Each structure stands twice: as structure tokens, then as C-alpha cells.
């Protein structure tokens, strides 16, 4: 029997969540509303002159072919990052879930990359893949004659930032997959084994379906991660280049707003970004979640 404590006062629960509400209001709703207002204005950075311009900022954005390209790039980038990091995380988790010696040690070691700051991860991959001083880049150029040059070619740059971003997130996915696998009832696996199902079949028909809630959760988290938290990687590795081929939305918001001080356009971009995330999350919950089984 679980012991539940409850409060007599009707107001106490409200009082207890008040700090959280205040924090959310000040740090999310208020700036979000400010951002929406700002996106309809043209104002100078010093805030001495603001003109209401209706949808001017949005029209300018969507008539810029490069902005549309930036949206496309963001989707390609986040899907690739999510696909790579989730599949790698799943693979490593299924390996680590086997009967290993020093299981705890292996798992701890695998979690470490998550603690690395994105900027550091970026720099590290730059040292591996830079065409002039990247160890791996020079090696593949010499041994295979591949003209690998992320400084010059957009596709190569995209591959590089996907690797740097996915590498960091693999650990996060790994933790959740291991936890999910631990929760799969041993009896089911054993029963399947007695019926003659091989390890791959057991994984495919039992473990994977039972992992689907974890899968879904990680999908959302990974996409949000690649939309927002990869900023440090882009900033240190490609700065959106070459030729804007890795200029994802959040980096463009920073470039135009923080560096360029074009507040109107940058606010409009943030609103678009926010709407995109809302739509993605909504679609995921509406369509993907239906296929997710929460009960074994």
C-alpha cells in the first residue's frame, strides 16, 4: 500500500506550483509574446524608433529563397541527426544489455559524451574532419583518394555537423533504451527462446514493440535537440557555411538578431521556428503516438 499524503487546504497546491508558474510566465510566455509583438515591428536596436509594419518582416522572409532553403536544411539536418543518433543508441544499448562483465563500467563510459558541451564536440570533430588538419580527413584522402572538403562543399559540411551532433546525442538515447530494455519482462523473452526464436527475431517482435514509447519520446527529444541545441556545433564548425548549406533556422535567428541587430526579422524567424516545433510535436502526438503501445 502506497502511503499518500494529502493537504487539507484548497489553496496550498496552487501556492506550491506558483513558483513554477511564475518561472514559466517570465521566461517563456512573456518573451514569446514580446517576440510576437516585435515581429510586427521594424525597430532600431536602441529602441528609440519602432514602426508597426504588419507582416512586412514575414513577407521579406518568405520571399527570400534562402530562407525557404534554410527551413529545408533544418529538416534534413534534424531528421538525419535523429536517425543516426537513435539507431546508434539502440544498437549500442542492445549490445550493452547483454550479459557483460563490468556492465556498470561500460554503461557509465558510454554516457560520458553527453556531458560534453556542443561547442567542444564540434571542435573535436573539426580536428578529425577538417580537410587540412583533420586526422581522419587526411587519412581517407590518402588511402581512398576521396576529395573530402567540408570547408568548400555543402554536403560534406552537412555530414560533418550531423556526425558531431548525433555523436553527442547517442549517449542520451542509449540511457533511455537501456532503461527501456530493462523493463522488458524476462519471461517473454525466455518463452520466445523456448519456442525457438533467434536473438534477432526476439528483438524485432518483442523488444522493439515494447520499446516504442521510448522510441517516440526520443524522436521528439532528438528533433528538438537538433533544432535548438546544436547551435554551438554550427557556430564552432561551419558558421552556417559553405554557401549557407548548414545555416539552420536557429543559427540564422542568432546571426540576424544578435550579431546583425535586425530585431524585426529575427523575431519573425523565432515565431516561425516556434510554430514549426509546435506543428511537429502536434503531428507526432496525433499520428505517431497512435501507433505507440504503452502497455505490454
Amino acid at each position, binding site marked *: 500500500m502506497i502511503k499518500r499524503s494529502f493537504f487539507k487546504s484548497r489553496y496550498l497546491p496552487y501556492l506550491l506550483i506558483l513558483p513554477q508558474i511564475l518561472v514559466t510566465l517570465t521566461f517563456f510566455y512573456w518573451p514569446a509574446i514580446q517576440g510576437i509583438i516585435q515581429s510586427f515591428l521594424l525597430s532600431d536596436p536602441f529602441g528609440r524608433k519602432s514602426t508597426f509594419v504588419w507582416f512586412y518582416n514575414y513577407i521579406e522572409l518568405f520571399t*527570400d529563397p534562402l530562407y525557404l532553403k534554410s527551413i529545408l536544411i533544418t529538416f534534413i539536418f534534424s531528421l538525419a541527426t535523429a536517425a543516426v543518433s537513435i539507431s546508434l543508441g539502440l544498437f549500442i544499448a542492445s549490445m550493452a544489455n547483454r550479459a557483460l562483465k563490468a556492465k556498470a563500467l561500460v554503461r557509465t563510459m558510454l554516457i560520458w559524451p553527453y556531458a560534453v558541451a556542443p561547442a567542444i564536440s564540434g571542435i573535436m570533430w573539426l580536428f578529425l574532419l577538417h580537410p587540412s588538419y583533420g586526422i581522419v580527413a587526411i587519412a581517407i584522402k590518402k588511402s581512398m583518394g576521396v576529395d573530402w572538403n567540408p570547408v568548400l562543399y555543402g554536403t560534406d559540411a552537412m555530414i560533418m555537423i550531423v556526425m558531431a551532433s548525433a555523436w553527442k546525442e547517442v549517449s542520451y538515447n542509449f540511457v533511455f533504451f537501456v532503461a527501456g530494455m530493462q523493463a522488458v519482462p524476462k519471461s517473454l523473452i525466455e518463452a520466445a527462446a523456448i519456442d525457438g526464436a533467434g536473438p534477432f527475431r526476439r528483438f524485432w517482435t518483442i523488444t522493439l514493440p515494447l520499446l516504442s514509447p521510448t522510441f517516440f519520446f526520443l524522436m521528439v527529444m532528438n528533433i528538438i535537440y537538433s533544432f535548438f541545441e546544436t547551435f554551438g556545433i554550427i557556430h564552432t564548425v561551419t558558421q552556417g557555411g559553405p554557401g549557407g548549406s548548414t545555416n539552420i533556422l536557429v543559427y540564422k535567428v542568432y546571426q540576424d538578431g544578435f550579431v546583425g541587430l535586425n530585431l524585426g526579422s529575427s523575431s519573425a524567424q523565432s515565431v516561425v521556428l516556434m510554430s514549426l516545433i509546435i506543428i511537429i510535436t502536434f503531428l507526432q502526438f496525433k499520428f505517431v503516438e497512435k501507433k505507440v503501445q504503452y502497455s505490454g
Partner: protein
Amino acid sequence: MKLTRIALLVMTALCLALPASVFAKPVTINWWHAMRSARGEVVAKMIEEFNASQSDYKVVGTFKGNYDETMNAGVAAFRAKKQPHILQVFEVGTQTMMLSGAVYPVFELMKDTGYDIDWSRYLQAVLSYYMNADGNLVSMPFNSSTPIMYYNVDMFKKAGIAPLSKTEPVTWDELGEITKKLVQAGIAPAGMVTAWQSWTQIENYSAIHNTPFASKANGYEGLDCELEINNPMVVKHITRLKSWADDKRFMYGGQKYQGPKSEFIAQNAAIYIDSISGIAKLKKAVKDFKWDAAPLPIEAGTTPQNSIIGGASLWVLNGHTKEEYKGVAAFLKFLASNEMQEFWHKETGYFPITIDAYESLKAKGYYDSDPLQEVGISQLNRAIPTKISRGLRLGYFVQIRNIINEELEMVWNGKKSPQKALDDATARSNAQLKTFAKTYK
């Protein structure tokens, strides 16, 4: 027990009250800057000297991050009415600062506080960058640089190429021959590499050849200006660089971190175009070969103009007392003194901003022992700045440079022709300029 506690409290109160009453004399002047590490130490030293030289004012310097961060901090502080007296802003922020209405123009400040300054004794190419349309100085030049050309002396020697002159620029055709020799003989993996391609290959290229970068005298004479970099001359220059890129005479080394500088240091390229502030860094980093510097190349048959500066200047912000402004003026005057300018120039490689400081260094024989430091100055001083070569005054200049960068990268990787890329860069930049003009209408 109780008594001692009270005594202690009284003592503390007294101690706290004392400095406020007895030592209230020096007026504090806040200076927010973006000078880190070695340069930051030089700045700190200058402040220290000023504070020690008099007792009326006390300058407090605060490092606020890189240029973007410093400017943002200044903007945010101004909005919160907590602005510093002096703010260091990079050259691309000049137009935004001028239109901000938050600035106390330097020429007015000096006049109001009774300083009679002979502006003609300043380096004109530096000064004119920060003048308004009437020729009055709006912000105080501080750290100014200009691009020059570094080259690997050992590689030149191996290829049998004579060292370059420090005052007479080579032509681009000659540079083509030089790089061809270096690459074809297998002496250098690539001919040249350039940093800040918009600044060095388009902005300075245009200024040196007295070709407009933008209409309305490069934006000095009106907000409704438009970029003009898709002119035949620039297109030809970029086309040439692209053909060099194809036969390795030019190598694209990427932007900041990806490092054109590291390509030069690693001897992947024999020639490297970058700011004069690179001198100090190369002196430290290059160990295994000899290098030297020369002015930027020019087109055959042209008389070169001065090059354009980069760097930052000091802006005096509104909203302080007269007393404090007196201190600001005294400090700015102090910074421009020979002693400080010589020190600054020697330690950082940036220009001395006055002719007097330059001449005094010359008289002392400084440039005989360190001739590298003079390459930028003589390039800057070789002609009186014209309306076109004095500088650029564009809104959203950071984004415009980004656009130019992006479009040039598409030229280097073969996705666009030079003409198309420069047309697109012009059109995209003009959209930015239109928005900027609309903001201040």
C-alpha cells in the same frame, strides 16, 4: 559581548561611509571594450597610466566579450538606462551607432569640454571612416587595421622569385605568375589564401581601385543606397580568383575558425592576405620558415588609392553629466597622445592614429628595425582618401558581409558563376538595405 558587537557595527559603518565622503573626488568613467588577452592587457595598462596621471577621474575598463557581444551589451545597457560612458564598437556597427541617437559625437564633446584638437594631424584614412557627411568626427578611432599580403620567403626563394617591395604593390597579373611558379614547381600546395574575403577581396579591392562598393558615396550620403559590387571590375577579379582556385593558385581556406591563417602557418599556401593585426600572431606562431609582408596587389596600369580600415572605434554615449564628459574627453585626448599611441601600435600592430605618433616612431628608427609594421601605414597613407576610398557606411553590414561570404563560397565550390553570385549578393544585400532604410524613416 553586546557592547563589542555594537562597537563592531559602528566601526563597519564608519569604514563603509569613509570612502564615500573622503575619497569621493575621482569621477568614475566606464569603458566597455572587446579587447581580450594580450590586447586586453595593453588596454588595462593604458587605463592604469591615465588613472595614475591625474586624480580627478578614474576610468574603469570592462571586457564585455567579442565585438558582437560588446555592442549588444551596450545596446541592452542603453535600453536599461545603465549605459557606460564609452563603448567600443566594431567598424560594421558604425552606421547603426550613428543613427542610434544615443551618441555624443566626439567633435562636439571635444569642443564642449574645451579641447582644441587639430584633426588634420590624424591619419586621414582612419579618421574619415568615422566622419559624418559634414566631415565631422563622430566616434574616436581606436584600433584600426587594414589588410596586407603576407608571403612565405623560403618558398619564394626556392622558386627563384625576388622578395616583394614593402611599398610598391605587385599587380594581380604578376601575382598570377608568382603563384603559378610556386604551384607548378610543387613548392607550395596552393598559391594564395585569404581571410575575410568580403573585406579583403571586395571592399578593399574596390577602394584601392576607386570603384564604388555602394551608391551614394558608399552609403555616406544617404540611407537609400544600393550595393554595386556586380560591376565588371569586381566580377573580373572574382572570375580570376575562381580560375586560380581551379588550378590551385588560390585556395579557399574557409571563414574564421577553419582558418586561412592556419593554412599559411602549415605552409599549405605561400601567400596569405589578412589584417595587419596578423603580424603579432604570425610572429608568435611561425617557427619553421621566414615570412614577410607586402601591400595588397593592384590591377596593372592603375594608380592605387588607400586601402580601407577595419577594427573598432570608441563611441561616447548620451545620458551622463557634464563633469563625467570632461573626464571622457580628457581620457580620449590621453589615448591619442604620442606615448600611448606608440605603445599601442608597438604592442598590438594596430595603427597609431596620429601622424605625430607615427613620425615620432619613425624618428626613433622603429621602422628600420621592424619594417613590417610600416607596410600597412604606407599603404593607407599613399593617397588622400576619395569619397569612394574613405570607407563604407552601410546598414545591416554584418548581414551584408555574410551574404557576400555565402555567395562567394558558391563561386568557389562551383555552384554559381561569378556574375550570378555577385548579382545575387547585390540583390540580397539591397533587400537588407531597404529594410534598414525603412527602419529609420
